[in-house]
Structures are given as C-alpha cells and as structure tokens.
C-alpha cells in the first residue's frame, strides 16, 4: 500500500488480499479476502526493525479451485 496513506483505528483503509496459484486453467486456484487495514503494534520479537505494521480485518472471502470443477445432481 502507499506508505503515505494514514491508517489508524478511526480511519480504516479498504484493502484486498489475494493468494493465487497455478498457470494453466485446471491449475488455477485462489482465495481473496476483502476487508480493511488498521494500524497495529509491532510484535515484540521484531522491535527495532523499521517496519510499519497493520492489522487486516477480514469482512468476506471468496475462493476457487478450477481443478475441483464438478456437477451437483
């Protein structure tokens, strides 16, 4: 995301996360989450590393896997 976008609990930023896999039709599969980002406290284990941390609050998800295409009777 644009690092200049202000993100805090009061102004959540809409966001989408996608994990997909496969090259050819029957290999294609993915999961998509829609939600919003809010600022989060950095985990203690990695304090000292200059990263901004966000919490992704999931509102809904969609997934597909073309290899499992089938007909229900």
């Amino acid at each position, binding site marked *: 995301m644009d690092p200049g976008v202000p993100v805090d609990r009061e102004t959540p930023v809409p966001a989408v996360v996608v994990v*997909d896999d496969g090259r*050819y039709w029957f*290999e294609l599969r993915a999961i998509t989450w829609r939600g919003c980002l809010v600022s989060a406290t950095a985990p203690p284990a990695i304090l000292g590393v200059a990263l901004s941390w966000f919490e992704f609050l999931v509102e809904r998800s969609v997934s597909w896997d073309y290899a499992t295409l089938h007909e229900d009777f």
Partner: protein
Amino acid sequence: MHPDDPIVLGFIRHSFVARVATRSRSGLPGLTPLWFVVEGGSFFMGTSKAALAVRNAAANPEVAILLDGEAAGRSEYVLRVGGRARVHAGFPTWRVLARLALKYYVAPAAARVELAHASQWRLRQRYYAQGRAAVIEVVPEKAELLHRPD
C-alpha cells in the same frame, strides 16, 4: 521505467498470471488474478462481463498490473505496470485469442494439463456459457520494480 524497457519485456515474457488492481467508482480496491497476453503494446485480459475487474475498470480506468515473472524463478522484485483500461464487450480479437491459445492451451506444459483434465472440458464450457465475455485492454503508461516483501 518505460513499458518498452527490456526488464519490463522480460517480466511479461516470464509471467503467466497478472494481478490486476482496480478501484470501484467509490474507490474500493479490487485485485484479480487474470491470464493476459500483450498485443500491439497493450495488455489484454479476457474474463466475464460481470467480473469485478471489468466493472471497476469501466468505472475507473486507472489500473495497475502486477507481474511476478514466475517462470524465470523467484525474483526479489515484482513489476508494477500502471496504465489506462478500456473494456470491450464480447470475445477478444482473433490475434489475441491466438496468443491466449498458444500461451495457455497449446504450449507443451499447458497441453499436458489440458489432457489430464479432458473429462472436465464439457463442464468448463458450461461454466463459461453462464456469463457474457468481456476483454480488459490496458495501455501501459509507466512501469516500476517493487521490492518483494520477505
């Protein structure tokens, strides 16, 4: 970086799935993995007319395309191509269709996957028949390499 830069062309040559980032009229983001080919300097992606990427691109033509170049092995960069989209109802041109077929159905690795799933071809045909086709054409305007997160 110019869209004709050899680095950009390398990412295009080695990528199979583009992640197409769009925004709705109200600004909500969308990110859709889509097959793509490049023809005449434009990206072409075929999908359903009802797909979120199509609706968003029609409402807000400023889009971004993310390419991994995955066929060249894992890179420390992702390519982001920014451009303007146009939505065309119906099927792609024959030239675009031919490129799609060569890349995703006829190439030896693709044909092996197709043959392994021959029993599902009829179902796929019915799946596609449920919707109307549309094509997103993106004219690239700029490109940049982004560090891939660890």
